[in-house]
């Protein structure tokens, strides 16, 4: 989900009109007549007479829905023969010293080639990576969805990882993506060529920094790569395939050019990972129990990717230079709290408890309208107000206690009220 993502709200009156839009009023006699007609027809209906088509999924997919399924590929296991994120990392850590340096160097070269080469296709994995992994696979990216109009893409709730602030320079933008850049449009080509030299210089600086860190580091420290990025504008959203790409050392190094704090954090963390790939392997076990998890923390308005490496080794030392550099950087901003909860969050909070509330008025003709007020700090229900028609009825307390169980993520405003109609079950 994009952060700061809000459900589009209709004008207030339109929302009121849409919510609980009633059917034309009919008398109880008319309803009873209708029910009698149904029952009369049922007497002539034999079991099993309904065709299966009426029980099938009713609706076709929207054309745009195919694209929005892409983020799930992040959580899936790559097909056999393809290098997974964990395999690449394992290769970087398990190979001999020379191979690790080769990995880093090839990564840098690949990144530079990626910048110069406008092809959309991802270049093949550096040979050192494949050799170190002992696999003859290939790195395959998730195909990107077909291009869509700008506004449609903006509205789509997708998992993205983008810098916290709008990146002013293309180099920074690409660096924050930690990915080979997308092919430029024709009008952007001159600017791209002009920036190639600058990008090369940045890469060189990053490579030097990476090598410096690797030589000063004696032993593999804790390998925890955290890419935390707030999404300020959906236009800058990185396609899921980009997030899913292999974290080459080159992309890591490029990230050091990013100006925003999260991007810098990413760069440093990536540098740490790159340096780990070059540490001495004399006492390192060949087979380490490593696993990478890609976590999606999308409940809040901040998209956060956490790549976590778990190691069995108890004796882990941290890299002092890296920590010093990290300490000098401004810490990334705390998770942004939404001004108010989105409609989706409110629906998700009220949906489960609404079923309980509806059971309180089961069998009745109509249900009351309830206004649930949430406390912004805790996200808990502060109060539940029901229609006057329910006052004193047995169902009042039942509904109230059911709705009190709703929970929202905390939000900035002091309170937020949502109205729901508790329809009878």
């Amino acid at each position, binding site marked *: 989900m994009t952060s700061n993502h809000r459900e589009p709200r209709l004008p207030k009156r339109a929302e009121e*009109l849409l919510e609980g839009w009633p059917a034309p009023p009919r008398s109880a006699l008319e309803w009873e007549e209708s029910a009698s007609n149904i029952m009369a027809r049922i007497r002539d209906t034999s079991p099993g007479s309904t065709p299966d088509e009426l029980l099938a999924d009713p609706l076709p997919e929207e054309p745009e829905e195919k694209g929005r399924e892409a983020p799930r590929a992040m959580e899936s296991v790559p097909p056999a023969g393809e290098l997974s994120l964990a395999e690449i990392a394992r290769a970087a850590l398990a190979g001999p010293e020379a191979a690790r340096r080769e990995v880093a160097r090839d990564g840098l070269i690949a990144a530079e080639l990626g910048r110069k080469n406008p092809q959309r296709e991802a270049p093949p994995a550096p040979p050192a990576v494949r050799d170190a992994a002992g696999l003859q696979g290939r790195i395959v990216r998730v195909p990107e969805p077909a291009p869509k109009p700008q506004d449609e893409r903006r509205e789509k709730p997708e998992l993205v990882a983008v810098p916290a602030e709008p990146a002013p320079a293309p180099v920074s933008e690409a660096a924050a993506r930690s990915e080979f850049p997308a092919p430029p449009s024709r009008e952007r080509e001159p600017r791209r060529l002009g920036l190639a030299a600058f990008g090369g210089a940045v890469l060189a600086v990053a490579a030097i920094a990476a090598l410096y860190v690797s030589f000063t580091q004696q032993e593999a420290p804790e390998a925890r790569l955290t890419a935390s990025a707030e999404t300020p504008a959906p236009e800058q959203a990185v396609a899921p395939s980009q997030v899913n790409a292999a974290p080459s050392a080159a992309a890591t190094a490029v990230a050091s050019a990013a100006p925003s704090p999260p991007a810098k954090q990413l760069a440093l963390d990536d540098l740490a990972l790159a340096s780990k790939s070059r540490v001495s392997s004399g006492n390192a076990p060949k087979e380490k129990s490593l696993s990478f998890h890609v976590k999606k923390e999308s409940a809040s308005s901040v998209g956060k990717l956490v790549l976590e490496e778990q190691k069995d080794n108890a004796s882990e030392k941290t890299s002092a230079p890296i920590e010093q550099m990290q300490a000098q950087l401004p810490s990334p901003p705390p998770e942004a709290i939404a001004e108010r909860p989105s409609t*989706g969050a409110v629906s998700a909070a009220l949906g489960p408890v609404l079923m309980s509330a509806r059971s309180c008025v089961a069998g009745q003709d109509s249900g009351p309208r309830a206004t649930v007020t949430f406390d912004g700090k805790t996200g808990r229900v502060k109060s539940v107000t029901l229609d006057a028609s329910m006052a004193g009825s047995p169902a009042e307390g039942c509904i109230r206690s059911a709705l009190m169980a709703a929970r929202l993520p905390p939000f900035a405003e002091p309170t937020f009220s949502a109205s729901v109609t508790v329809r009878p*079950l």
Partner: protein
Amino acid sequence: MPAQKSDRDLVEAARAGDSEAFGAFVRRHQRRVFRLSLHLLQNTAEAEDVAQEAFVRAYGALDRFDGRSEPFTWLYRITVNLSLNAIRSRKTRRAGTTTDDPRIEAALVERRPGFSDPARQVTDRELALALCDGVDALSETLRTTLVLVAVDGLSHAEVSQVLGCPEGTVAWRVHEARRKLREFLSNRGHGSDGETDR
């Protein structure tokens, strides 16, 4: 007393041959099924037919109700399928919402605060008309999902059972439908006080 029994109890009893139990199930859900089909079909007579047909078809398929979903979501699925079949079998497409659209009357008859004000009634009628036009302009998929969530008040989980798609897809469809509806209303001059995306 049948009214106190759960839907599952009623359906189980009906499967065992208790037609009265199914009668209770019909009386419990006929209003909602009628309203759903009305919002999908925009025609009272057709909605009435589909609502009745939905119960008859549900009865004819009781042996295939596997109990994995709630009986009413299963009934809704049949209703949606029947409504879509009716729409697709129409010989002519509706040109647009007319003032005698049953949905408009239904919305305006309900007593809401401010409905006693004639000026407000005119504004609300125009808004309801625009809203109906906007909903009708949505694709079949978006419209059905929006009606189930926004109008009928089903949760995303329930709608995912009705439509047989993931909850995330339901959420996306609702989001997309609302966005398009907001644009439509804005073009019709009803865009004020809507919260914008950020």
